[in-house]
């Protein structure tokens, strides 16, 4: 299982049960990271992927259902319990500060940064993607 998440400058993910931000081009990049395989997520996250229904697999217990190498997108679900079993972490940085009441479990101790890319989102000036592996 591979973990993907979006975070702000302080590692925040969620505020008041809502994602901090969203971006159409980031969603496309996330789908390309799934590399044709299923993209697992919660029913809440599924709401912003209505244009790609065939690739989205939504379930309340999606991390449990994801197979080896399959990508899981965490928004309203805490990724901390799943880090130990994960093979890869894909972090998208908004490069903005937002309010948060849930954070991604940082730092990623024991993980190595494999690649870093920057791209302009549809409404975000610069999104930074980092891919970590053990």
């Amino acid at each position, binding site marked *: 299982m591979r973990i993907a998440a979006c975070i*702000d400058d302080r590692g925040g993910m969620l*505020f*008041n049960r*809502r994602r*901090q*931000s*969203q*971006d*159409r081009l980031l969603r496309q990049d996330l789908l390309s990271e799934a590399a044709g395989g299923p993209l697992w997520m919660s029913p809440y996250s599924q*709401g912003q992927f209505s244009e790609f229904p065939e690739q989205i697999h939504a379930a309340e217990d999606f991390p449990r259902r994801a197979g080896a190498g399959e990508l899981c997108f965490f928004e309203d679900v805490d990724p901390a319990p799943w880090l130990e079993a994960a093979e890869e972490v894909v972090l998208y940085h*908004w490069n*903005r*500060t*937002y*309010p*948060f009441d849930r954070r991604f479990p940082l730092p990623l101790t024991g993980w190595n940064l494999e690649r870093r890319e920057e791209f302009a989102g*549809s*409404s*975000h000036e610069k999104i930074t993607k980092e891919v970590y592996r053990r």
Partner: protein
Amino acid sequence: MKKKNRTILALAVLLVLLAGAWYLRSAGYVGQEPVQTSAAVDLENVPPFSGEPYVAVNNNVPSFLPGELTTSSYEVYSPLDDLGRCGVASACVGVDLMPTEERESIGQVKPSGWQTVKYDCVDGKYLYNRCHLIGFQLTGENANKQNLITGTRYMNVEGMLPFENMVTDYVKETENHVLYRVSPVYDGDDLVARGVQMEALSVEDEGEGVSFNVYVYNSQPGVEIDYATGESWLEGEARPEEDEPEVSYILNTSSKKFHLPTCSGASSMKKENREEYTGSREDLIAQGYEPCGTCKP
């Protein structure tokens, strides 16, 4: 109707319209939207500042009324009160309100309680910022004195900016509207707000995208603030005493009495004993002088 009469009638109609517009604005109405002039937050119910820049109010549920939901953009600012303080600022933020030009200088505005003061422990040194109630990135307001309050750097950057970013990016991405209200919260006649209440609700998706109701503290870690005046001092240090005002007195260097310049004892004093003095009363007493029993300076 003769031309002269038509002109008089047109002028009368114009005067009535102008008077009506002035009344609506001074009464807090602009366009169709009534201005809420005071915050819904009761300071007695706000927990003391504990190092977190904001705290949820009403379980983070904003208190907009159903009749306030609209997909027409607007922005409304309250007139300053008798103390020169800002009131509630409201908007329905849409992409059409967002700035298309660079921000202009706002340094000419001196919000209530404004002080220019620097501390090493403050990011950027300056304790106070001219804080937009509705951030520039949302409605493009520059030097609007009805939208600028005296706010700490901490409140501006750590407290308010993240919420402004969240609303801005949501509106840009979705092109939806967000109802947005910022209410400065004062204690009595304080010139500086204790904090601001920030509320927002995305309209088209009925709050699925954005919904919050928070109180942001107008605090600065490491600095104590007198909200009545805006004066400040480092935490753990004694508050600087106010300088006693300097007053002019007439001294009798022989009797060691001091008088007001208008005192009869001052005018009848011998020239060789007379000395003019400007300074504090306490200093004179410390030098061994006593106040005149007649003029009681």
